[in-house]
């Protein structure tokens, strides 16, 4: 009998997460054994809010996700976070799976984070970087992809300087693709780990005010970040030199605030973007000193923040430019926490992408 019994009740039962508040009265427990019947009963459970979360096939950009999927990833990461701090810090979940880190653009931090995330889940990791690989010998992107496919990798994590490269890869390959940053386009895991970090500090983010400061024009982090924050209901303000604001920024669903000092008193989060010197091919602002004076976060500005407000940065920081050492090392800075949380969030994404067919079973054990 291969037919799966699908009852209206089972998704609700599966999603009832409530961690069991204990009732005051004790012994009235004896469960009534209802004899075999009920195809469509399910009265007790089906009323739960349980909307099914759509399964993930790839993680290419935040714009592919809906709010429920974002929350599901964050909730999963929340449960995975303690594993990293345990004495035995790996779980066997993805044993035998091969995750390929295809890094066509330099990024030590992101690669190490993905590497550790995969290893904590017992996956094998192949690191493939542009330098010293077939790519530097002139192999095309498509041929590289097909080679990886032929080697039987189960997931490709791709970082590329070209916007859209991960989506193209997803067309070539049948395995899940994770975008680890593509050009100016998207950096979804960074946005997810940031939202995760904010949620851990502030709780529900609906109505919270996040101020994003800096180079929005070149920043894939900012694009993903704004989309993720909109999905969870946060209000986003952006502050930047006019030359570093994207032309269509009004359509991002953000408020443009002209001065950093005006934005700070209402902020729950100040998110500082890196001044990306490598992308500054023309002069976008007069000098580093002027940037720091107008758009940089320093001790004086730190004291304008509410007590509970936090300061974030995707790293690597340019101390003395967008952030001073005093701010980076202050109690309100959660920058190192972002790094730790990044591993848990990437574990969650790998888990949801790689452990995933589509049938729900509750009774069968």
């Amino acid at each position, binding site marked *: 009998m291969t037919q799966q019994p699908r009852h209206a009740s089972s998704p609700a039962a599966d999603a009832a997460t409530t961690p069991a508040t204990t009732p005051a009265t004790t012994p009235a427990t004896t*469960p009534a054994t209802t004899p075999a019947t009920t195809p469509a009963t399910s009265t007790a459970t089906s009323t739960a809010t349980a909307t099914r979360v759509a399964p993930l096939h790839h993680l290419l950009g935040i714009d592919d996700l809906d709010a429920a999927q974002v929350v599901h990833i964050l909730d999963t990461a929340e449960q995975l976070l303690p594993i990293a701090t345990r004495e035995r810090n790996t779980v066997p979940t993805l044993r035998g799976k091969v995750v390929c880190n295809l890094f066509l653009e330099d990024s030590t931090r992101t690669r190490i984070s993905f590497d550790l995330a995969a290893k904590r889940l017992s996956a094998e990791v192949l690191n493939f970087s542009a330098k010293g690989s077939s790519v530097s010998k002139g192999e095309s992107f498509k041929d590289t992809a097909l080679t990886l496919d032929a080697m039987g990798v189960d997931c490709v994590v791709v970082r590329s300087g070209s916007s859209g490269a991960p989506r193209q890869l997803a067309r070539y390959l049948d395995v899940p693709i994770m975008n680890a940053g593509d050009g100016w386009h998207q950096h979804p895991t960074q946005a997810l780990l940031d939202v995760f970090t904010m949620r851990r500090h502030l709780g529900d983010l609906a109505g919270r005010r996040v101020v994003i400061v800096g180079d929005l024009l070149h920043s894939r982090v900012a694009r993903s970040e704004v989309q993720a924050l909109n999905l969870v209901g946060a209000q986003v303000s952006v502050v930047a030199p006019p030359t570093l604001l994207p032309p269509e920024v009004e359509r991002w669903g953000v408020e443009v605030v002209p001065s950093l000092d005006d934005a700070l008193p209402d902020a729950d989060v100040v998110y500082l973007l890196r001044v990306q010197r490598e992308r500054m091919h023309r002069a976008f602002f007069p000098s580093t000193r002027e940037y720091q004076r107008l758009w940089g976060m320093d001790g004086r500005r730190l004291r304008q923040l509410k007590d509970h407000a936090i300061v974030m940065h995707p790293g690597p920081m340019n101390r003395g430019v967008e952030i001073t050492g005093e701010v980076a090392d202050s109690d309100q800075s959660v920058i190192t926490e972002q790094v730790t949380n990044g591993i848990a969030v990437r574990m969650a994404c790998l888990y949801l992408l790689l452990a995933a067919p589509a049938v729900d079973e509750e009774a069968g054990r």
Partner: protein
Amino acid sequence: MLRRLAHELIEANQGAEGLVLVGIQTRGLPLAQRLARLIGEIEGTEVPCGALDVTLYRDDLGRRAPKSLHATDVPVDVTGRTVVLVDDVLYTGRTIRAALDALNELGRPDRIRLVVLVDRGHRELPIRADHVGKNLPTAYDDRIRVLVEETDGQDAVVSEEVPA
């Protein structure tokens, strides 16, 4: 039924000394909490109780939907204690195998006992429960669901026959 199981556990352990109850997420947890409270009342002591999520240790990942993860939180060091695993339904035994692996990551208990509310048969692994609330013969394809007040609003065991 839980009261009887509580007494059985106390008898087998000669008291509540060294016991820690660990409920398997999700329906095992409220059952473990109730058992811990009952044992505590009977023995006049506090019995520690924790939660174990075995999803990451299952052998059927990739065959079935990845379940939502729930908390693993055991408040005491299990090393040197008697861990009582609590689950709602014992069926193939695969959940329990996963639970043994998951517990192993947390420490080295002196011994591990298994308590289930319902044993419905059809074991696929050499695993049996030490204490059973009720043996409930079922067909392999039936679906047995234990509902608990805490999450489902009522206490019940529901058996659903698969339409032929």
